[in-house]
């Protein structure tokens, strides 16, 4: 949808014309430039430098997570009992923990967990929530009632407490954290998608498609879903940081990722007892969490500014 088909068309249909350049200039004056996905992104980059910076920060975190073994000489579980609780130095960039493990190294490996728990459960919950929301909004009737009452129930629990109960039920570990976060978050996604679908269903262009005789299913895929897309993208950038925060809180309470795996929340928790003599132990991973969450939030803001369909007119 976003590719520049105009150029393809120009090659195929437009006959060579001496004043074709004048004509295209005139076109541009009359109705503006062609809008593609890339021109949208360029506009965001131009208007919102912070969003670009955030994207770079996120990219750096991803690179750090992927190339962790090449970026550090230590391994995340090797203990150095002679060097316990040492302050940040050239040797250990962010110091060492109570077992003498290098914090920078554990931070790098921990970013794998944080990024994964940001993205994987969000994708799961958004897929599930979107499907249920579309069914609920488009089908209506008993399916709508059932799904929405279930969502009401899920949303009545404070998310942290619900996550705690589900983690208690499933037990700790990465996969279970994924499942828990997906279970906790699908309901709000379903609600938003449903209201979006309900609004889109009433638009004139959907009625226009019905006049033409386009089958209901095609209307759903050609007209409803693509128009939900901007909302979904923005929702995604909002849900990723919230998932990262929930995971870190769960791990902080000892209910999420289990030792010896490293996770930022877990590191904060472990460092808490040394808060007064070695504050870097819990502060460094905290700041890492804040940075990645902040970056996602800024990026989300930037995306919303250019994608928000309501601001276009």
């Amino acid at each position, binding site marked *: 949808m976003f590719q520049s088909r*105009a150029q393809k068309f120009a090659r195929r249909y437009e006959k060579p014309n001496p004043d074709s350049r004048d004509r295209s200039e005139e076109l541009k004056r009359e*109705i*503006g430039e062609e809008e593609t996905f890339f021109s949208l992104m360029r506009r965001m980059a131009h208007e919102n430098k912070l969003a670009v910076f955030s994207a770079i920060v996120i990219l750096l975190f991803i690179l750090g997570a992927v190339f962790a073994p090449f970026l550090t000489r230590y391994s995340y579980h090797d203990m150095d009992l002679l060097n316990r609780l040492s302050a940040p130095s050239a040797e250990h960039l962010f110091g060492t923990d109570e077992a003498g493990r290098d914090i920078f190294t554990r931070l790098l490996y921990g970013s794998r967990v944080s990024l994964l728990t940001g993205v994987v459960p969000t994708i799961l919950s958004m897929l599930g929530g979107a499907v249920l929301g579309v069914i609920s909004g488009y089908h209506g009737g008993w399916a709508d009632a059932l799904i929405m009452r279930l969502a009401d129930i899920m949303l009545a629990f404070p998310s942290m407490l619900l996550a705690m109960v589900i983690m208690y039920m499933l037990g700790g570990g990465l996969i279970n954290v994924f499942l828990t976060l997906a279970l906790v978050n699908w309901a709000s996604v379903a609600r938003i998608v449903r209201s979006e679908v309900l609004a889109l269903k009433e638009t004139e262009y959907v009625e226009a498609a019905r006049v033409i005789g386009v089958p209901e299913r095609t209307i759903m895929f050609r*007209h409803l879903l693509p128009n939900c897309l901007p909302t979904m993208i923005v929702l995604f950038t909002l849900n990723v940081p919230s998932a990262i925060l929930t995971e870190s809180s769960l791990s902080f309470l000892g209910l999420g990722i289990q030792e010896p795996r490293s996770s930022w929340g877990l590191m904060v928790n472990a460092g808490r007892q040394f808060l007064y003599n070695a504050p870097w132990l819990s502060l460094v991973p905290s700041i890492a969490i804040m940075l990645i969450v902040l970056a996602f939030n800024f990026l989300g803001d930037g995306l919303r500014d250019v994608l928000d369909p309501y601001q276009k007119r």
Partner: protein
Amino acid sequence: MSEILIEGRNLTKEFTAGRKKKVHAVTDVSLQILQGETLGLVGESGCGKSTLGRLLIRLLKPDSGRLLVHGEDVTDLSDKEFGKYRRQLQLIFQDPYASLDPRLCVRDLIAEPLKTWHVCRTKEELTQRVLEKMEEVGVPGEYLYRYPHQFSGGQRQRIGIARALAAQPELIVCDEPVSALDVPVQNQILNLLNQLQESKGLTYLFISHDLSVVRHISDRVCVMFLGTICEIGKTQEVFQNPMHPYTRFLMNAILPPDPHRRNDQAELLSGEIPSAVNPPSGCRFHTRCPYADERCRREMPALQDAGDGHQAACHHTMN
């Protein structure tokens, strides 16, 4: 006499608005549209003209009454059985900003009916047909891959017309197609509609609140008030010789663009339009009608023919 294309018999449609409240949008309306004519449908906002337009192409299903296309009763057909009529009965919308999907480019928009009805075999053929349609409505072919929000109101309306044409319809319901446009642009669109009717033998149901526009484009005019038909007849007849008091008041409210013809003295309607939730008993117009008497409050008048198809629903038919 030309053939009857669409006939609605005693159509009634109500919408529920909240608890126990019903909006009586269309009440017991019978109407025929003849092949090749333009039937104008005028009335003020909320009089049910858009609803009637949608009932007549079965975009809405009536609560009661029958709908006949070419004499065949299609009221109770399933959507699938109705399919062959679907493409013959098209609609053009009032708001060219809202009726085009913002995420589809012009080519995809116009190609949608062609694809739905499997008219073309290859992609090249499809694009060629789209270009033809664009040329017919006067949108330059260079705009093929542009998106709706880049166009002006008039051009969007042309794209909407091209979409309707692509389905090769017999009847197009035009729902206030020019009321969002400035006068010169409005005239361009009206000219286009007239020219398309001539070249393709189309039938129009033209819905509008603007009497001058309706007068220009219609062969026959139908005046609605609060879900019922007040008057129907040949355009000349209705405009020069209105029989229903409401029609007369509508005529009085016309503002000619000529300072020499100010309507300072004309008698104007007073009061507000009654609510369609609780329509008045008897004649729906009696609360505002200066001629209303006891009978009007009690009894809803039926359409009476005054010759040559000119009918009015009033107990005190003028003249």
